[in-house]
């Protein structure tokens, strides 16, 4: 079902401060959508408006074609997992999961059985009798997830749920959340400021900045075709080079330092337009001498950061700071302080007009 969740022109103001400015978005049934953005960008406020804990100053929220803007949080049938899990400390894991069923009048014996089944699905079979404080962070997370899913909510909202976990556990939970979400087919909104989390989990990413939506697209589209410099800089590593279009028909732009640069894409841009060229660090090749058939430039190497299997080479092409990501073996040919040659193919250059 398309347009299952529909946000229309949502605004939120606190006094003179505008937290959300005309946010519109539609999400399909079963989709996993991530709200990505720096803190204060409006992603959590949007989530709280969907959940009903914040009231929008304007605009409507619809689920399944029905407006829920006027409903109280407990009438919305939306499951939420909070960053700190918010498990009830006076209830055991299985009682926590039973709670939403209890509120819906399910009998205790049947409700507890259903809750046990849900705990099994999240991989916590046999942990039901424990209190939250007797569970590890990852286990608490699973209980919170089970509790938010057991009553078959129309939406699942996850508010930075992995923030408090260490790196290994976080990766494990990313896979786990994805698996559970797929198996139940529940429409999910995931809020995070971690771009790698967003890239690995989402069907689509919504990038927030200063209370506005910057771009909505699939993870790889966002990565390869960012529509604004903010998105390009926020997602992945990037080299952003200011330039002016010299020939829209030939897809050529000019930068004072680099000279003429060919770019990819079929958009015919007007000559003289100011643009930003995006080149991802992994698309740049490092060599001693210029390579035929590519755009070449000289770069002074300033810093080499080794990661074992790859290395990040940071340097300057004239006055332009450049980052080059190279495979571990290739970095042997250069040292810090040396001058070398960087080159890229025309299809590695993407034009950003905003």
């Amino acid at each position, binding site marked *: 079902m398309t347009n299952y969740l529909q946000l229309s022109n949502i605004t939120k103001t606190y006094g003179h401060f505008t937290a959300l400015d005309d946010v519109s978005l539609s999400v399909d049934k079963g989709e996993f959508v991530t709200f990505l953005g720096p803190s204060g960008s409006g992603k959590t406020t949007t989530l709280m408006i969907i959940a009903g804990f914040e009231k929008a100053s304007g605009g409507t929220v619809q689920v399944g074609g029905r407006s829920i803007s006027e409903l*109280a949080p407990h009438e919305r049938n939306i*499951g939420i997992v909070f960053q700190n899990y*918010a498990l009830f400390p006076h209830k055991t894991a299985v009682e926590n999961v039973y709670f939403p069923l209890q509120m819906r009048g399910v009998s205790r014996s049947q409700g507890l059985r259903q809750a046990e089944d849900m705990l099994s699905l999240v991989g916590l079979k046999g942990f039901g009798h424990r209190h939250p404080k007797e569970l590890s962070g990852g286990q608490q997370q699973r209980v919170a997830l089970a509790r938010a899913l057991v009553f078959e909510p129309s939406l699942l909202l996850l508010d930075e749920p992995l923030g408090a976990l260490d790196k290994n556990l976080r990766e494990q939970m990313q896979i786990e959340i994805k698996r559970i979400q797929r198996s139940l087919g529940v429409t999910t909104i995931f809020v995070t400021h971690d771009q790698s989390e967003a890239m690995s989990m989402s069907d689509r990413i919504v990038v927030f900045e200063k209370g506005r939506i910057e771009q909505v697209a699939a993870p790889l589209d966002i990565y390869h075709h960012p529509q604004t410099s903010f998105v390009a800089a926020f997602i992945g590593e990037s080299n952003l080079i200011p330039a002016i279009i010299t020939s829209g028909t030939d897809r050529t732009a000019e930068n004072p330092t680099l000279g003429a640069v060919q770019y990819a894409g079929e958009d015919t841009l007007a000559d003289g337009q100011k643009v930003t060229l995006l080149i991802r660090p992994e698309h740049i090749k490092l060599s001693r001498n210029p390579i035929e058939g590519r755009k070449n430039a000289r770069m002074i190497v300033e810093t080499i950061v080794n990661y074992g299997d790859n290395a990040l080479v940071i340097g300057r092409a004239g006055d332009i700071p450049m980052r080059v990501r190279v495979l571990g073996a290739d970095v042997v040919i250069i040292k810090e302080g040396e001058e070398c040659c960087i080159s890229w193919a025309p299809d590695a250059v993407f034009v950003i007009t905003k």
Partner: protein
Amino acid sequence: MNTFMRWAGFIVVLFIAAPLVIVVPMSFSNASSLQFPPPGYWLGYYRAYFTSMDWLIPTWNSILIATATTILTMALVVPATFALVRHKFRGKGFADLMMLMPMAVPHIVMAVGYYSYFGDLGLVHSHLGVILAHTCLSVPIAFLVLSANLKGFDRNLERAAQSLGASPAKTFLHVTLPILRPGLVISSLFAFIQSFDETVVAIFISGRDAETLPRKMFDSIRQEADPVIAVISTLLFFVVLLGIAAPYFASALRSRAPKPSRPAGAH
């Protein structure tokens, strides 16, 4: 721990415990007034306490007044604490100050105030008058305890409950109240003890009809130094001791409960 610290600790404990060391034996004394060390021992003053209406009525008054004070205090403090901790409104700072005021003003000043003011209202020498005055004195301490608890309360728990389908009333009943229970128990306990212990205001306004135990004890020690005072002190001490020890006994019993599930051949 070095020797000095050990001795310092010992002396402090001794200093704190000394009144007990004196009061408990004196309650079993057969002297005609308070005297230490006691010349001989008997249980006569215990019988005197439990058979004399002069003592039992003030005891009953104290329990009644302290219970009513606790109920009234909590009825005022619970909503007030929620309002003052969770909401911003005009005059909040002033309301906060007024809640704590009775603690800052000396009891004697309050007592004189009540004496003249309640006199006009006809509340002097009545249970109601003492209950109202004690409630006023109990509010600050109950408020302090409860607001500390409520400030540490994670509001996401309530949001979670609501998202899971609990109406605000059910959220309060199933989540807020159970989690705040320790704070509520402790603040009502403080309210009760404050009233049970309060002497100055009671002396001024309780009169004959609503005479409380501390007032009766004070009168008694001034007039005849009746050793029944030592009996009451000892009894109160053991009630408190029991109250403190009860949770330990309860948890000891609870932790013993699952043990029989060990293999039968283990011992």
